[in-house]
């Protein structure tokens, strides 16, 4: 089903909002108001493109820490995110137990993930198994960085999904680096999509700065998965425009020229230009969106700043469940 004009605009809005929110996180960090931020800047086109290819409320998302735009699109509010940045009590992912950007939204079927990379991939396959056993037609979208596909965990997850023809889409967000380590030191193939041939499922490579190219590829993979045709690996190529995290200094491993070069391909700017060129959006509409985003982010920061911290002793629970609430 082709995307409507409204959907496309909504997608652009998600990119824009999460970008401005993400940028604000960097500002908050510089101001000493938050201790840590890990950024999705440069990856929003792929994230929004992919997440619009699944059905909210029905399908599952098993994300990783850069997926701010995905999770915003799935329904996390900006103030919820800022609360998680600040470690405030009512942040919805972990009650401020986890570092920011370790997402989880139970009501939206966004599974909690941890910091050790690639641990989420087998969970996606497990959810896929559950769906298959129940004969359902839900689909699981799971993401990972290209470096993290070096973990045996990812291989095993994809292998299992391929053997059992599970409804899982494995999206690799290839931003060229794993902290300082470039792709050539992670794999001897040119794309994580190439890994698929060794596991017996389709592997597709797309331009991760093009929201609609990603959408199309993921939508097709989702359709296949929904019809019982099994899993896919999709690699979206992009670039991490910021340092790895607020703790990183990327000057030790990449030149400023390289970063500047890639800033010219900033997906937000490219998408904006495309939208305006194709008449999907006017400059004025764009400016309105910018104003709206700024306002929302301002409000989010204000709200989150006022929100209370948890009490220390809140951390004592919940270690064990008394009953299963997530059935």
């Amino acid at each position, binding site marked *: 089903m082709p995307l409507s004009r409204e959907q496309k605009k909504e997608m652009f809005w998600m990119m824009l909002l999460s970008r401005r929110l993400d940028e604000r996180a960097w500002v908050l960090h510089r101001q000493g108001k938050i201790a840590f931020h890990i950024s999705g800047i440069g990856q929003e086109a792929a994230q929004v493109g992919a997440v619009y290819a699944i059905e909210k409320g029905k399908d599952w998302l098993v994300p990783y820490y850069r997926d701010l735009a995905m999770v915003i699109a799935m329904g996390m509010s900006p103030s919820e995110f800022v609360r998680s940045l600040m470690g405030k009590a009512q942040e919805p992912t972990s009650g401020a137990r986890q570092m920011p950007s370790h997402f989880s939204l139970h009501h939206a079927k966004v599974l*909690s993930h941890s910091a050790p990379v690639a641990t989420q991939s087998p969970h996606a396959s497990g959810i896929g198994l559950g769906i298959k056993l129940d004969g359902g037609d839900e689909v699981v979208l799971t993401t990972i960085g290209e470096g993290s596909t070096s973990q045996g965990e990812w291989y095993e*997850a994809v292998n299992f999904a391929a053997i059992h023809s599970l409804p899982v889409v494995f999206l690799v967000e290839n931003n060229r680096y794993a902290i300082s380590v470039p792709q050539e030191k992670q794999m001897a193939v040119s794309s994580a999509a190439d890994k698929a041939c060794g596991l017996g499922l389709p592997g597709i490579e797309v331009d991760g700065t093009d929201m609609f190219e990603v959408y199309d590829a993921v939508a097709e993979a989702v359709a296949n998965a929904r019809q019982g045709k099994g899993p896919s690996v999709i690699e979206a190529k992009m670039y991490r425009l910021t340092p790895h995290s607020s703790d990183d200094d990327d000057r030790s491993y990449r030149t400023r020229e390289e970063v500047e070069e890639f800033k010219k391909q900033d997906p937000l700017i490219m998408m904006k230009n495309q939208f305006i060129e194709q008449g999907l959006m006017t400059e004025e509409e764009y400016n309105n969106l910018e104003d709206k985003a700024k306002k929302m982010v301002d409000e989010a920061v204000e709200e989150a700043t006022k929100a209370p911290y948890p009490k220390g002793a809140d951390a004592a629970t919940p270690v064990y469940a008394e009953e299963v609430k997530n059935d």
Partner: protein
Amino acid sequence: MTEITMIEAIRQAMDEELGRDERVFIIGEDVGVRGGVFRATQGLFEKYGEDRVIDSPLAELTIVGVGIGAAVYGKRPICEIQFADFIYPAFNQIVSEAAKMYYRSNGQWSVPMVIRAPYGGGIGGGLYHSQSVEAFFTQVPGLKVVIPSNPYDAKGLLKSAVRDPNPVLFFEPKKGYRLIKGEVPEDDQEYTVPIGPAKVTRPGQDLTVFAYGMMHHYALQAAETVASEGIDVEVVDLRTLYPVDRETILESVRKTSKALIVHEDNLTGGYGAEIAATIAEWGFMNLDAPVRRLAGPDVPAVPFSHPMQEWFMINPDKIAVAIRDLAAF
């Protein structure tokens, strides 16, 4: 009541839980047509089909990681690790994921899952088919660790484990699979044994032996032996190793004032350390003697060759010696 073996008790528990709850399924290596290498799942593939009894790839990380995903989705996986010695590839999934999912999501996502694995030596398995691995997990909040010592408990505890909303590691004393027999209620008399409480399995006055699994079985035998010599031993089956049932342990120490902890895992850093520490901290005022541990020697694992295996393994005689020694203190 009918008398059955440990392995049969375990098989029955799974059979009944598969029958009771559609969400329950088994995943592991050779659990399907083969019925498990110890035959714990014998007949279940035929009875419940390949969607309920799934032969996994040869990959423990997959078994547990996929189990976690299925559990958060809404299933009730029983993951079989063929030998406890092979649980390490799944260590990250167990310790980082299963154990921490509930806490890290502030209660949003729980992981109702069982991981079964045969453990222990004395069966000619050598270094890699004899290990006791419980102490790696009895320090991980979010996990529960259960080790039954008899068919009644094995069946009742495993059923509780399947129904528990948390990840439960269920280690089975493989040497006892066919050796240990005991009574369980008839098929139509459904029962469970709660996860949590330890149990005084032999009341006594002179000292307490704390043990679990195969060593509990031996401890009862040793207690019998020394009884004829006038030593009145209390035996406690720890059963649920984690969380620790400190109350039952301390109550027994208050009564007997002497404690001997027995396990077949290495002494140093083994599970007995926590029991000894518990007693030394909260039972100190009741103690009349040093807290003793009788455990496997600090070598990497149980060697294959028979004389070396016997050298490693704790048996009823060695326990009796330790009991006499402590009683004489």
